[in-house]
């Protein structure tokens, strides 16, 4: 197994998935790196690596959920030491859109989040079903509903923001 090549190929996807799942870049980095550290201790055939690291990472996220919350509070309550320069309007708007997406993801059920995010990373229905705990035949319906819920929540938030402004 060419570890470096596998890492280059898989790490961005795993980081992206974990960042979308947790909303916390620190946690995503930490968990993704830890999954690969464990992989270094457990060489696997190449075609087993991707599902393995994703599963290890998901287990780490579940196991560390409370610790993540404490650490996140620690970092976000630390004072900003360097006054940031004012952001141009475009970046403010982007930051607001990002916040909106995060708010929508937080409002979805864990199952819907898993469905959408795993689908985004190219997992097959059989794999998604195994993680989410449903029959593979129902994954299509569940994904369609999750997509609709996401878009409905996102659009409802935009309407609310427009009404406020």
């Amino acid at each position, binding site marked *: 197994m060419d570890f470096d090549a596998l890492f280059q190929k898989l*790490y961005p996807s795993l980081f*992206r998935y974990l960042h979308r799942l947790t909303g916390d870049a620190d946690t995503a980095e930490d968990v993704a790196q830890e999954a690969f550290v464990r992989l270094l201790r457990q060489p696997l055939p190449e075609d087993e690596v991707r599902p393995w690291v994703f599963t290890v990472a998901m287990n780490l996220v579940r196991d560390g959920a409370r610790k993540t919350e404490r650490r996140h509070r620690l970092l976000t309550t630390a004072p900003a*030491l*360097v006054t940031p320069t004012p952001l141009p309007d475009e970046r403010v708007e982007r930051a607001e859109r990002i916040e909106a997406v995060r708010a929508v993801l937080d409002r979805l059920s864990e199952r819907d989040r898993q469905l959408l995010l795993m689908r985004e990373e190219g997992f097959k229905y059989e794999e998604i079903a195994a993680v989410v705990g449903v029959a593979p035949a129902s994954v299509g319906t569940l994904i369609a509903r999750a997509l609709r819920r*996401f878009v409905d929540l996102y659009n409802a938030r935009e309407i609310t923001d427009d009404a406020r402004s």
Partner: protein
Amino acid sequence: MTHAVEGTLQAYLDEEMAPADRSALESHLLRCDACREQLEDLLRLSSEVHAALSETDLVAGTAMALQQVRLRHGALGGAPAAASGAARREAAARWTAFGRPLRLTPASLLKAAALAVLVAGAASLAVPGSPLFAWLRDALQRPDAAAPAPQPVATPEPRLTPAPEQPAAPPPAGFITPMDGTIQIRVIGVAPGAEIQVRYTNEAGAGVFPSGDADPRYRTRPGVIEVSGLNSGGVLIELPRNVPRASIEVNGELYLLKAGDGWDLRGPVQEQDAGGVTFRART
């Protein structure tokens, strides 16, 4: 006419249908406006969600992450454990291996193009022998449809094995590059009296090099690095002299601030020169 259910259409978009079922659905789509509209709607939803999620993404920083993984692995002893067949079988109940190479999505762009043709030219597509029909069929062909799925293999979580004898390695270092011209370094849990050495460099990014009996743990995000686990050891921080803004915080106290050309030294300075400054952590 029996319409396709939403789950079936979603599975079609996600290339999850068996070839025979896919062919049957495509034949139906050629004749059914309602199902084509529903398929379009699902494709729109998928595109909107994909775009929204993509907006939140950060750059992964793969090169630095790989370095961190290597350093963490080395700090833990570095010996890979051989996976025994018994250990692999034993953990079969813990999780289900997927055992199949994964493809990245989306084929949505291709689907969108095919769908546009489908909606706009339904009449011509209804002729099986037409060139357009053949193109559509080829465009929607699932890759590797005939490839047999490998048998799932259960792989357990790795178990730690005793590390072999190795010479002591220095504690792993951490690195960070500026974000919008700013670097923030936070050092947590520094022992009273420990040395915090800061050297100005011509590098683009900052480096954090713990020493002594440190067992460092790093947390990073763009432009920010936090290090803990120094135990009784000190730390050397290499800071780019040309970074527009920088700060070093030790145990929650601001020791160094740079905004523009000047270095504002607020911590307990032990010595300083043109090349840097050394602080001694407060007791």
